[in-house]
């Protein structure tokens, strides 16, 4: 094993990767490691590196055609000199895989933070798949795995920053509802399907574009649940354009397909145009809906009645049947499977939140916790408790 340097602080570049391995004199192999936070029941990492909780376990699997097989070493460690954690490490040929878990003391019952780091030492980038396997039967989605109503594992949105992406797609978890709408009159078939942000979750899409470029984005909306105005106004936002609050019933009527054109621009130059349908805090119904997205290059807006009827959908640069058949995630891979390209002499780090005894993991779409703030919370609590 290369470079395991006991008793020293390993400092890495990105996320305050400060792990003090303080194990002098402790047997390193074949042991399981418990960890917790003040006053909360412990979790453990078993000798195989699985995270074991009261609901089941999480096993990390890293696949890649160039990777060597090897077994991990598991040992206790201390993060930031104060946070007890379990750490596993294995050299897999061109990459080293390290994962560690600690308890973030979030109110009321805490959550376990599992961080996976892939480091490449060679001159070539290394493709790898990070996969999480759960021992228990869970309902999988883009960002969560649930057993009943309990979120046993969640994938923070920031984790996807390291995952390979498609040219367009949704970037968070909302509910696809095919056939929900009953569009009347000439209407593109995509109007029949929606995504809904149940529980007040925004619906978010991204489209890759030339950095700084412009486009015309048209959002198609058809409300078929309510029959009177004032209940479900929705805020529609497209990057670079003025946002618009629309009450579909007031504007077009029940079952009537409508279209909202926006002149979009990649304002922050990140090569992506973001599209969002957000709830209004004061609305009676805070579940935003979206039926169709058309993206046209340039700045010419097509005739809306023709667009609504579906006549020009095939000429669109991007045509998204939201919640329907051609809908897709922005990210490659499947639930709990993450394709990652580890850069030459660089690293990639993915973080996951795992329900610990008595808790449910935060839902990424509605939580304010980040990897940094969770770590800060753990640091604050341990330091205060020690004092």
């Amino acid at each position: 094993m290369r470079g395991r340097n006991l008793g020293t602080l390993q400092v890495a570049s990105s996320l305050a990767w400060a792990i003090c391995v303080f194990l002098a004199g402790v047997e390193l192999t074949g042991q399981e490691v418990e960890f917790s936070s003040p006053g909360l029941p412990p979790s453990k990492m078993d000798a195989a590196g699985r995270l074991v909780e009261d609901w089941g376990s999480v096993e990390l699997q890293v696949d890649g055609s160039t990777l060597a097989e090897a077994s991990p070493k598991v040992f206790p460690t201390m993060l930031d000199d104060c946070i007890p954690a379990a750490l596993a490490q294995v050299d897999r040929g061109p990459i080293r895989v390290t994962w560690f878990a600690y308890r973030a003391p979030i109110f009321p019952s805490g959550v376990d933070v599992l961080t996976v780091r892939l480091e490449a030492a060679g001159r070539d980038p290394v493709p790898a798949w990070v996969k999480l396997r759960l021992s228990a039967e869970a309902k999988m989605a883009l960002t969560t795995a649930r057993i009943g109503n309990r979120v046993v594992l969640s994938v923070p949105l920031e984790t996807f920053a390291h995952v390979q992406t498609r040219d367009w797609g949704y970037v968070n978890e909302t509910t696809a509802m095919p056939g929900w709408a009953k569009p009347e009159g000439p209407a593109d078939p995509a109007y029949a399907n929606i995504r809904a942000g149940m529980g007040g979750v925004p619906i978010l899409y991204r489209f890759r574009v030339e950095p700084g470029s412009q486009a015309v984005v048209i959002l198609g909306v058809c409300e078929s649940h309510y029959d009177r105005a004032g209940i479900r106004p929705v805020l529609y936002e497209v990057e670079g354009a003025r946002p618009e609050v629309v009450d579909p019933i007031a504007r077009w009527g029940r079952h009537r397909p409508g279209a909202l054109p926006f002149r979009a621009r990649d304002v922050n130059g990140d090569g992506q145009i973001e599209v969002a349908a957000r709830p209004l805090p004061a609305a009676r119904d805070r579940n935003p809906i979206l039926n169709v997205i058309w993206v046209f290059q340039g700045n010419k807006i097509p005739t809306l009645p023709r667009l609504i009827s579906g006549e020009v959908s095939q000429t669109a640069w991007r045509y998204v049947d939201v919640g329907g058949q051609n809908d897709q995630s922005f990210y490659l891979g499947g639930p709990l499977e993450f394709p990652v390209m580890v850069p030459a002499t660089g690293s990639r780090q993915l973080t996951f939140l795992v329900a610990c005894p008595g808790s449910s993991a935060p839902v990424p779409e509605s939580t304010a916790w980040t990897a940094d703030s969770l770590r800060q919370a753990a640091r604050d609590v341990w330091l205060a408790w020690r004092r």
Partner: protein
Amino acid sequence: MSASTAGASVWLTSARASQREEGPAPTDYVDPASLRPKPEVRVMATFLEFPRPYWLGWPGTAYDLDARQAEFRAALEQSAQKLGIQAYLEPRPINNEGDVRQWIQKVKGEKPHAVLVILQHFGTWGWASLVGKEAGVPVIIFSPIGMAFTGHVAGPARMAGVHVISSLEWSAVENALRAVRAKRMFEETRVLWIRGNEHSETVVERLGTKVRAIPRDTFNQEFDRQPVTEEVRELAAQLRKNAHDIVEPNQEDALNAMRTYVTAKRLLAREEAHALSMDCLGMVEAKLVPTPPCAGWTFLQDQGITAGCEADLYGALSLMLTSYFLDRPGFMNDPVPETVHNTLIAAHCTSGTRIAGFDKPPAPYVLRNHSESAIGVAMQVLWPEGEPITLVRFTGPHELIVDTGKVVGNVPTPPAGGCRTSVEIAMDEVEDCRDVRGFHQVVTLGNHRAALRAFCDLYGIKMTRSPRFSTFEGGAA
């Protein structure tokens, strides 16, 4: 168990044991001012302008950039001094996108608690949006009149973590800075959650407040250790002397009430905590104390120390909001609909008296006992009729219910039952009093809806309200 965790467990136990032995003695004086958090607050600020000289385009050639910027610079300095925060204003205005991006990098490096951008041309909104999106900290955009149309404001004003002020009112900027300070106080606060039999410490999402759970018995055991000190005697005398009237409580009740206050201060100091919320009713029900803590809690609240009832954590956090942001105690209450008057009666036993502000004269109060148990001391605080009020309630870390109204009376007990302080409120823009949302809402004097908007904008909190129109229309199902 592994060597590491075995070590940690031993360490934990010993830490707690030693902590119990430390802290002030029952006869020590604890300065309440030392219990209120005093966080460091750093704000970075800059002017955004177009290259000079101006010719057409708002604010126009006639706009005296140097004079206005000197005024804003002085105002910021004054506000920072008043609020006790550190504000770093760039010495020169930024006037091109490259420098905006460079400044954003500087912000990312220095990690202030918020940034303030002061717009000096209506063409700078794109840069302001860039700051809002990229800075990674809460952003206050101040657009003096003459820098924006509605179209400019619409986008940035809806960005998470951005508060837009399109106005000439500098007080709104100061209010936003006050929100930043309040948030830092939330982050620096450890609230003692006195209930059950647990010892633990956790952190509240978004607000960053630490919650230290300690067993409920801790309080009554410490109360039992608390003698009648000189401080207790003086405070009890003051409590009686300042009362508009005394109905039930006797001298011993007053002494016991002030023993709860001194016990609470001592416990807070020992645990390095700044606020508390206790399962007080459970303690009274079990007859563990001779008095509920109501009057002691009133004293704490008047001194800016949040003291919440019934171990309702989000109730305590709502109280904290009025204390830290509005500089006045709130009144956590049970909401009672008065269906004949179509009013709301906010009823509980722990209203602060300095409801107009910590530095303002207190409201009159009557010394009563705790009505549910008929023991101890609870104050009936008489709220000023005709004055506006605001009701706030965190339903969780992501949502704040904000309603407003007007005090129309103080309901006496008897003939009413319930709680000693019972404030009758005519709600603004809530057609039916039965629709008022929330429980254990916090009433505070003054209409603070606009001010609270800044706090919610900056920290991504949904600001909601009770339904404007009746949900009972049409009668029974």
